């Protein structure tokens, strides 16, 4: 099981700030999680190409294995300032 946190336009697309993924590959990479998300949540699919992934206060690469005990955070293109 993995908790996924959504920000910005992803919240709007999913209609929620958090999702739970129950079925995942073993020792998933971020990319593998994004693939599952795109399949299970078609409304998110158009945005996942330009999403960055984070856990805690750090970005992670998509080929990196994630820690499934912590939320995976999905960050769409940023517009601060």
């Amino acid at each position, binding site marked *: 099981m993995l908790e996924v946190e959504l920000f910005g336009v992803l919240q709007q697309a999913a209609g929620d700030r958090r999702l739970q993924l129950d079925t995942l590959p073993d020792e998933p990479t971020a990319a593998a999680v994004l693939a599952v998300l795109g399949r299970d949540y078609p409304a998110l699919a158009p945005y996942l190409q330009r999403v960055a992934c984070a856990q805690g206060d750090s970005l992670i690469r998509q080929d990196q294995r994630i820690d499934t005990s912590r939320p995976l955070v999905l960050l769409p293109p940023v*517009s601060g300032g």
Partner: protein
Amino acid sequence: MSRMTDQPLDMDQLLRETENDACGALVVFGGIVRNHHGGKGVTGMRYSAYGPMAEKVLTELEQETLEKFPVSECRIVHRTGDLAIGEASVLVVVRAPHRGDAFDGARYAIDTLKLRLPVWKHDFYDDGSEGFQDGVPLETAAQSDEGTRS
């Protein structure tokens, strides 16, 4: 003041916190909510952030600005929540012995903030519509020039 806050930004406090008798130049940049975007009238904005990472990005960006430019002070604060037209969403304060360096440092800080800070603008338009502004995809360490950022 913490760097990410839902309270109005306080320029006077930042100026006090950065006082430095060796610095002859002060440059302040303020990002202000303006009344138009993409040809439409704007009535207000909502800024949301991924807090834990945003605080860290600003702390690192202050440090990086101090290292890359001959500047002595760099402080950055960013607002979240609902902002009215004319309110400041971000303040950058840089002090340096010389003015060219202070300008360069402040410009670097705000330009880089826009590439790295996990913050999202949501516009409210005067025709009743609303929506997130499109932005800049965050680069992960593997994609960027420097490998140390994440």
